[in-house]
């Protein structure tokens, strides 16, 4: 069964450093997402991406964040200058078609720890 994959599974970085989280969505999916879950809190939407551009973003997704689909398979989230409060699990998700009610499928997550 096709699945969303994410690398790395864990990332430790120093405050102020740049990190890039990588995702390979399900191959025939058209919508791509990043969510995060800070320890003990709910899963929060960051950004959605369709047709090579951001279609929706949350207040969390400020200028420190960017997304890119550099080739036909990868989808990346970059945090330019990490802060302590960026420590969280980051989940990538993808969705099949631009149809009402299509389900989003999630990857296993990347645990980011900012020191």
């Amino acid at each position, binding site marked *: 069964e096709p699945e969303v994959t*994410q690398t790395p599974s864990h990332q430790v970085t120093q405050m102020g450093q740049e990190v890039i989280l990588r995702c390979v969505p399900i191959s025939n999916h058209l919508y791509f997402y990043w969510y995060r879950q800070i320890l003990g809190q709910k899963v929060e939407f960051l950004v*959605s991406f369709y047709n090579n551009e951001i279609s*929706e973003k949350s207040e969390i997704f400020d200028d420190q964040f960017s997304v890119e689909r550099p080739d036909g398979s990868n989808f990346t989230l970059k945090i330019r200058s990490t802060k302590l409060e960026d420590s969280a699990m980051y989940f990538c998700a993808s969705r099949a078609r631009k149809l009402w*009610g299509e389900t*989003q499928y*999630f*990857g*296993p*997550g990347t*645990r980011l720890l900012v020191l």
Partner: protein
Amino acid sequence: DQQVKQNSPSLSVQEGRISILNCDYTNSMFDYFLWYKKYPAEGPTFLISISSIKDKNEDGRFTVFLNKSAKHLSLHIVPSQPGDSAVYFCAASVNSNSGYALNFGKGTSLLVTP
């Protein structure tokens, strides 16, 4: 701004019995609702969904009920099995929005005891 609320952080049920997980929402624009199951160190796994035009959707042991007037949905698991022990998240979206972003509740940790 908690648009999706799961007011029970935990629930314990005996194997074979029914598990009922509840979810309330405040945004009347939500028109698609999903339940995800999550194990530690894994991503959320889709379980079942329901659109706002329905009031019930069933898939095997899982049934989701939607009460739009009360802005309430529930997930029923019958019969409950020990392997169902996980955190269950309710999520909702507005399908008219361009991104179809999911709004999640904080989750309910279900423990099914033998």
